[in-house]
């Protein structure tokens, strides 16, 4: 299994005890995200749908590419890959 680093965006850090990065093992992005949600319960429903898709207000990137343009949650994860979770953020500092 590959070891990947998942970058947790600030809006989701309440689910990771404040951690900005979590190291997780998995051979696909889906495996990594599912094991991440086992470590930090509550994260899953913020990122994944019940039908095991990515929620529409979140994008997952592996190696700086959107998994939607790759193989979705089946996209392979190589050793030391960095996975970004990017949620929609509205704030403009008003």
């Amino acid at each position: 299994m590959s070891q990947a680093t998942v970058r947790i965006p600030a809006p989701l850090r309440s689910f990771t005890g404040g951690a900005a990065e979590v190291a997780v093992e998995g051979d696909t992005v889906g495996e990594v995200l599912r094991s991440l949600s086992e470590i930090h319960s509550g994260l899953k429903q913020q990122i994944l749908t019940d039908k095991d898709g990515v929620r529409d207000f979140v994008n997952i990137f592996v190696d700086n590419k959107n998994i939607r343009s790759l193989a979705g949650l089946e996209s392979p994860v190589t050793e030391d890959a960095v996975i970004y979770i990017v949620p929609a953020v509205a704030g403009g500092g008003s």
Partner: protein
Amino acid sequence: MTASGRRLQELKRAVPEVTAEEAFAQQQRGAVLIDVREPDEVAAGSPTGAQRIVRGFLELRIEDLVPELDKPLLVMCAGGARSLFACHDLQGLGYSNVCSVAGGFGAWGSQGLPIEVPRVLSDIERERYSRHVSIPEVGEAGQLTLLESKVLLVGAGGLGSPAGFYLAAAGVGTLGIVDDDVVDRSNLQRQILHTDRRIGTPKVESAVSTLSALNPAIELRSYALRLTSANVEEIFSGYDVVVDGSDNFPTRYLVNDACVKLGIPNVHGSIFRFEGQVSVFWPGYEKRRGPCYRCLFPEPPPPELAPSCAEAGVLGILPGVIGTLEAVEAIKILLGVGDPLVGRLLLYDALSQSFTELAVEPRPDCAWCCEGAVIEEYPDYELFCAVHGG
């Protein structure tokens, strides 16, 4: 005969000449007419649609303007002598289809061919924008473009403050500012357009007061209202770029939808605590098909995942970084220089002091911007966000 007279005789044999009427006809068919006279001569009038490059910079600048060596070029001076020398130099560079306009601008004028008085920088403008004029990618022409440009700032808050400051300073000729809020004491930690004394006054009023003090020559238009489906097109129409510094999802989606529909580039920035996102949503960008905001985020998140700055907090300097990056993108788009963040999402993390660039592609099935998408009317954004907000 003088030496220069002899040389002109030689050049007349080496360089084809056309009459002013013929030059006009060729220009209409796509030939590039280049006026090589000095700025003070050009200031009194120059052929309509002509390119103006002073003789001294002709060889250095022609390739940027006309990269194709076989493109038909017509060179004009005041009377037809300097243009012969200029044509000879262009031939030396490899341009194969070069003609000199016999009789020059004098003949053009006496034939009643169309003339325009090109806008040039005033002495005060030349001084104010001298550091722009010195940059080859901007120059006098670029600065004139900025002065003729119109940018709309959505929000005069954290992001709109630095963007407004820099765009006004850069000489963007018309700056519109939309905001329905009033200045609050808690804004002053980051919204540097406003001042302590202006607490309680409308933000657009405060912004106009600050920006007109910085650059009194630009036109500032204020819209003290909330953008809605009903007013968005009337407000956006005529602007070259929209800089989104709004603070809520209904406005984000409305800005996106109106920009896509009207073909206006949407410079996007958003902030959360120590992190920011910047991109340019512009499906109509000519160099590559970019995504719209809905391609990236088809739906807004539920409210518990989307706390506002008031709830979540934000480092006061963060909008300074992100709003400034938005201003850079706006200027690049207006000038047509560099590579805009179209199809690229830039993440900034102040804590690790790092930038990350992520590729974002258009969604083939995007409900708003995909080919064949029928844009009829804007949805009810409050409802859209509330429904998806669960």
